């Protein structure tokens, strides 16, 4: 048995050394998020409104909350919705905050503001989201991460921390596909996903007719790109809003966008509390 142990230990050491050497060889400085992007989200995107049309393309009736579960406190707020009051208070952008913005019909223009910040402009409501990668600490992000009140004002778009998720190597043995036929096309190159977590929000509306989210809502998104064989590019944003105060089960939706060749249809419009 001691011989067996020796062989096993030797194998472990060899494997460990190989891995260690692989890690030591050619040390590479970490690449900036812009250079390391596994997918290219830049460009113009148009929202495709095939879902929730009745609550997105037009302003639904007051009291029409189909598809959303709210706490009694939230329902009371929604039932008191008054767009005139929002306009008078200068809060006509309440339905354009980050948890709702990607569902507002419109176009996105995505660019790199710098090597660590992805900038998402929305023509609907003329809003801008800044998705910051890495340990980019701002007073607001530090406070939000620590769960403390921020010293800076909360905003409609909040503070967004971004992270690339790259495709995972080492597919478990039982999930590796059986040998493909000789004439099968090769597997496409690996892609990735963008994960964004947004906090420090200003309280707003998930829908135009006053369905609320609180300032403590946390928005978690996964942005997934899909390049079709015909050249079209589609974007699905898996969107999770956690807000126990107003949404007992949270809210999960996945709006879809299609890439456009240019910005010829870019049409900035101001926030509206009524339309």
């Amino acid at each position: 048995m001691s011989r067996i142990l020796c062989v096993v230990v030797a194998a472990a050491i060899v494997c460990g050394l190989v891995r260690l050497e692989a890690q030591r060889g050619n040390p590479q400085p970490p690449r900036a998020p812009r250079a390391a992007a596994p997918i290219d989200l830049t460009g113009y995107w148009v929202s495709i409104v095939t879902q929730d049309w009745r609550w997105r393309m037009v302003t639904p009736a007051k009291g029409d909350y189909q598809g959303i579960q709210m706490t009694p406190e939230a329902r009371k707020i929604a039932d008191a919705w008054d767009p005139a009051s929002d306009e008078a208070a200068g809060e006509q952008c309440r339905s354009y905050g980050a948890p709702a913005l990607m569902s507002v019909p419109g176009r996105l223009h995505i660019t790199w503001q710098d090597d660590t910040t992805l900038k998402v402009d929305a023509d609907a409501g003329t809003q801008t989201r800044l998705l910051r990668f890495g340990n980019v600490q701002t007073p607001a992000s530090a406070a939000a991460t620590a769960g403390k009140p921020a010293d800076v004002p909360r905003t409609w778009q909040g503070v967004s921390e971004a992270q690339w998720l790259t495709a995972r190597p080492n597919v478990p043995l039982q999930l590796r596909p059986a040998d493909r036929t000789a004439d099968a096309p090769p597997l496409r190159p690996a892609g990735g996903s963008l994960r964004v977590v947004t906090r420090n929000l200003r309280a707003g509306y998930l829908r135009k007719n006053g369905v609320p989210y609180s300032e403590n809502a946390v928005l978690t998104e996964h942005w997934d790109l899909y390049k079709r064989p015909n050249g079209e590019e589609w974007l699905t944003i898996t969107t999770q809003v956690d807000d126990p105060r107003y949404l007992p089960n949270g809210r999960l939706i996945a709006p879809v966008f299609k890439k456009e060749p240019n910005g010829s249809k870019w049409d900035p419009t101001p926030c509206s509390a009524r339309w």
Partner: protein
Amino acid sequence: MTFEQPRIAALITVVMLSAVPLVAQVDLTGTWQRVGGNDNGASNEPVDLLGMPLSADGRAKALSYDIASLSATERQCQMYPPMYAIVGPFPLQISTVPDSITQKLLAWKIAGWGDRDETVIWMDGRPHPSKNAPHSHGGFTTGEWEGDTLTAVTTHFKLGDIKRHRGFSSDRATMTYRFTRHEDLLTVTGILEDPVYLAEPFVLTQIFRLTTNPNSFPLTACEPIEELPRLHENPALVPHYLPGKHPALNEMTERYNIPLEAVLGGPETMYPEYRKRLKDKYVPPAPVAPGGRGGRGGAQGAQ
């Protein structure tokens, strides 16, 4: 070979595998509970084609549809095309189909549920059948990984309705699924293309959550039975509405003030600029009475 040698080999294998970096695996197996909040199957009005990129033929087909036609034995299973995986109410029960000899993955399987056919996603590169091959309600599906996303393409499925009795896909349609897992959430994006009834791709999404307490609803195939004696006695009878005669044509307009041209769908209705055509025509309806539509807490999707 001595008795010890296989044990030594097995131990060495275990040790070497453990030295491989541990990473999360993209495993789709399990039961996925439907948790998405989109309105895929929530329409109440018989004529609700909002945001559906129907062609003129697709619109005519949708408006000729009488739900009583589902009682005809040859039509009873037509509401379960591949799109039903997204618009239907059931969970996804996903398992693997291993090669019987190598045990490598041959296919993913989504179990049938409540009359929907099972979906087998072949991963071994086999081609799709000839276009003249028989069609089934579930169709024929192949898949491949693109990074961590499983892309599956389904062809050879029969005509079926694509949004709970609202709009149809023909037997020439193609359905592309994208299965993307993020921790315990699975996002499925469905892209339906149809040269007959759609003018542009119809895209829907649904989100599922992995559950350890799966629904044990019986898994049954769609089995046609004779429901209405009058259809059995007169097999030539097909319940339908003639052009312009659908009795619920104006229900959405009367209830929600949405112009009829929008209710009837079309590719232009799914783009943001369509709102400009609505702005001067639309007036929000009167407030809903307290306790009217939705808004209460409870299980996801229970509306």
